[in-house]
């Protein structure tokens, strides 16, 4: 029988070997795959068992932090400023992560390979794992001013401010916003309630209007048309161009008219049969002049110029930005419409800010970005964003010409945005208003658009604002821009080191 017993021993040995090999496979090789398995409550809880990194503004205001509350879910994400920074930070809910919370999740969570060595040291020394801190380019003063001013309009809209020299985003606000604290709660019922409320709200508070909703740019697009015209070398701001009261568009059922159906009159063109300087047409925003000019330049040229300003392409800041569109137009009649920012033109408020930023930075458009740097738990800097050029929109000379026209829009008493001077406290602003018609047969409320930069001589901030249904750009959007510019310039002046 012993012969059989030895064989039985071998069978037992084989069974135990199988178990051992399988345990090694499951716990050693398959562990990573299992960690990502559906409904893995352990992985889920793990993210709350250590301190997730904070998100701070460039002026060191904490806008997202993890607070220790004890228990298995030891840390609770909290957003001290509530809804103001929501479009920037996004939220870190048990279901998903958006905004910077989503885009920089690996670093905030401390799971990024760049933190691996540090985590290993922590493991050995028994220190709890900690996430890295993300420092934004956002300035708390500018951001608060942007949100407050948008909120004051009571209308949905978005506002973005950029440092034109670097592309660093100084403010990125959207209204109506949401309270990310409500989505970060670990109370399942409260979370579901908040989630349902936000998702079902007709105001769409979760929509980031600054980068993920597009609006017709309206007359602000004349910056692009002018840029294309000046770049051709055939025009300067002082070139005189046909300024009819009505621009006949034979291919359409419409005629292009000026805002109040008046001739574009600088005193020399009372009947709408003559020419006016382009700088005058820009300052008072004559549609017929720029419609005709755009027609003359052609859709292809405008398309190229729009591309140079960053349109027609996806962008990451690091969150994905909806592309602003200027689709190629071949029909000259529709080209006229597209040249004044109507037809199929759509832009995000960020794109509006990029128009102004490019002109402010002598034609060089910097890649917009939100993350200034990432700081490891040991306070060493892990990542620093080096500003990079997105594109060369126009030559410095052309930028100077467009800038001169934009300055007139605000400075000249007849400029469309002159009313904002009163709110600026002496800061010089160059800008362009837009009043974009909307809806089928333009039955929708006009969207108010503004793009501009300040100070004119040495631009430090470029702003883009869209207020949906706000009416005249000068009425609804320019004050928002003025508020942001003023707040930020005051901030800069009060801290001289910057």
């Amino acid at each position, binding site marked *: 029988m012993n012969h059989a017993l030895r064989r039985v021993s071998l069978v037992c040995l084989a069974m135990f070997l199988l178990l051992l090999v399988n345990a090694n496979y499951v716990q050693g090789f398959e562990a990573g795959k299992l960690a990502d398995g559906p409904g893995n409550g352990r992985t889920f809880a793990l993210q709350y068992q250590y301190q997730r990194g904070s998100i701070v503004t460039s002026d060191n205001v904490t806008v997202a932090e993890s607070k220790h509350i004890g*228990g298995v879910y030891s840390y609770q994400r909290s957003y001290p400023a509530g809804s103001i920074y929501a479009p920037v930070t996004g939220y870190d809910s048990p279901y998903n992560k958006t905004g910077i919370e989503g885009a920089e999740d690996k670093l905030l969570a401390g799971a990024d390979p760049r933190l691996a060595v540090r985590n290993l040291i922590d493991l050995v020394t028994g220190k709890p794992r900690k996430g890295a801190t993300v420092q934004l380019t956002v300035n708390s003063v500018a951001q608060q001013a942007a949100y407050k001013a948008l909120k004051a309009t009571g209308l949905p809209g978005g506002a973005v401010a950029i440092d034109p020299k670097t592309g660093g985003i100084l403010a990125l606000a959207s209204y109506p916003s949401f309270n990310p604290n409500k989505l970060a709660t670990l109370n399942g019922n409260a979370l579901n309630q908040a989630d349902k409320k936000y998702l079902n709200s007709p105001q769409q508070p979760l929509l980031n209007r600054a980068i993920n909703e597009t609006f017709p740019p309206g007359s602000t697009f004349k910056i692009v048309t002018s840029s294309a015209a000046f770049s051709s070398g055939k025009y300067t701001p002082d070139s005189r161009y046909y300024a009819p009261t009505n621009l006949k568009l034979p291919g359409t059922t419409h005629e292009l008219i000026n805002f109040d159906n008046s001739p574009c009159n600088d005193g020399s063109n009372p009947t709408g049969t003559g020419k006016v300087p382009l700088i005058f047409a820009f300052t008072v925003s004559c549609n017929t002049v720029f419609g005709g000019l755009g027609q003359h330049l052609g859709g292809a040229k405008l398309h190229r110029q729009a591309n140079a300003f960053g349109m027609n392409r996806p962008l990451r800041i690091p969150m994905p930005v909806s592309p602003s569109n200027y689709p190629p137009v071949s029909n000259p009649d529709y080209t006229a419409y597209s040249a004044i920012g109507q037809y199929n033109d759509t832009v995000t408020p960020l794109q509006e800010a990029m128009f102004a930023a490019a002109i402010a930075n002598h034609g060089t458009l910097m890649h917009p970005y939100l993350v200034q740097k990432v700081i490891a738990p040991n306070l060493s800097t892990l990542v620093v964003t080096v500003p990079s050029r997105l594109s060369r929109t126009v030559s410095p000379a052309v930028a100077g010409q467009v800038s001169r026209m934009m300055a007139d829009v605000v400075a000249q008493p007849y400029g469309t945005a002159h009313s904002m001077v009163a709110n600026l406290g002496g800061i010089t602003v160059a800008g362009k208003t837009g009043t974009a018609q909307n809806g089928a047969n333009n039955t929708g409320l006009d969207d108010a658009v503004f793009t501009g930069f300040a100070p004119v001589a040495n631009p430090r901030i470029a702003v883009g604002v869209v207020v949906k249904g706000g009416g005249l750009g000068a009425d609804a959007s320019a004050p928002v821009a003025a508020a942001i510019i003023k707040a930020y310039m005051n901030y800069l002046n009060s801290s001289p080191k910057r």
Partner: protein
Amino acid sequence: MSAMGATGNGAGTTASQPSLAGALSLPRGRRGAELIMLAFSIGVVLFAYANAGLGLNGHVPTGLATYGVLFAVLMLGAHLAVRKLAPWADPLLLPLAALLNGLGLVMIYRLQESGRNGNPGNAISTMSASTTTFQLMWSTIGVIAFVGVLMVVREPRMLQRYTYTLGAVGLVLLALPALLPNSISEVPGTGAKIQVSLGGFSIQPEEFAKLALAVFFAGYLVAKRDVLALAGRHVLGIALPRARDMGPVLIAWAASLLVLVFESDIGTSALFFGMFLIMLYVATQRTSWLLIGTSLFLVGAWAASKLVAHVGVRFAIWLHPTLYQNVFCGSASVHVPCVPSYQLAQGLYGLGFGGLLGTGLGHGQPYLTPLVQSDFIITAFGEELGLTGVMALLLIYGLIVQRGLRAAVAVRDPFSKLLAAGLAFVVALQVFVIVGGVTQLIPLTGITTPFLSQGGSSLVASWMLIALLMRISDTARRPAPQPIQDEGMTQVVRGI
């Protein structure tokens, strides 16, 4: 054999020199070694217990003194009983069993404390605040049963007399849950009818049936092994038995299938049939029995997976454990009912989460796996002690099996041999079925993890099993009777 002399470890000792045999080469019982290893086991258990408390809430458990002392006294009591009742028994078995039992107690304490008394985690609804106390009580009963078996069974062959009595007892115990109404015999939520539950107090008769049937198989096969081994003809190099000798195999097969069908318990069914097959093989040394039996079982299991829903689902889950479970299963927002793979998936997640070194006792979340304190307790060890802990536990089981098989090889009489082989193999098979089940090696069937799982029957039966193995090894290692005459070179030769 005779040349081994005093270097043999007892079983092969030959008293070639009477004077030496009397004074020097008397085989050692190695009780001292057992005591040292037992102390080591107790130390590990106490350390683990303190560690669990520290891991949970940063404090050494308040019960450390009482529970610790109780456990130590219990195990030392067992040791003293062995010293008296089975002085030549294998010195490893008791420390190994004590270590497993103690670690099981520690894990049950840790699971019980989860979410209670201010400790982190969710409270496990299927455990009460006194589960550990109950388990310690069952351990006491187990050790008493261990001592009882050693006292009653002074010689393993004595059991041979009760072959058919114990066979009948085993069958009754096995069939009992199937005959009782579901309210008494069904384990809630599993569909398996394997217990007898009265007034909140439940036992699983199959655990004891296992022991009774092992004795029955051993006795029966010893009596019938010649005919089972020799008759028949060769086909393709395999000696096939005669058709009429197929009887016992078919009966055992039918009985295991009945268990499967009426108690919806493929694990127990596999356990009994596997034990029978191996004992049949050892008795007859005929590989054909193994082939026939294994094919029969596979056919039966396949048919059952098609016919019995409970078994079919297990197969589907085995193939895709994470597929069928609702993502938010078990949380506050349950929209879709949990499907049965939740448990297996959570167990696997726990094992994966533990990784190589584990989270440390008290730091994991084993409570996320339903019924982690019984069938899935190995996943709790895997989560908190890691692959290292699981491998250590498997090696402990492996050692128990090895010591059992060693006793089988060493013991002389065929009945004891068969019994030891059957008992050792059933431990191996049980560990294989449950650990393989929860680690997705084979389809999961709910049977207990010997010594570790919460529950009294399994623990008591396991202690009794260890007692039987120790008794057999004691018989095997017991020095041969002294030759009566001094003169001459009479040898006592042990036949194997």
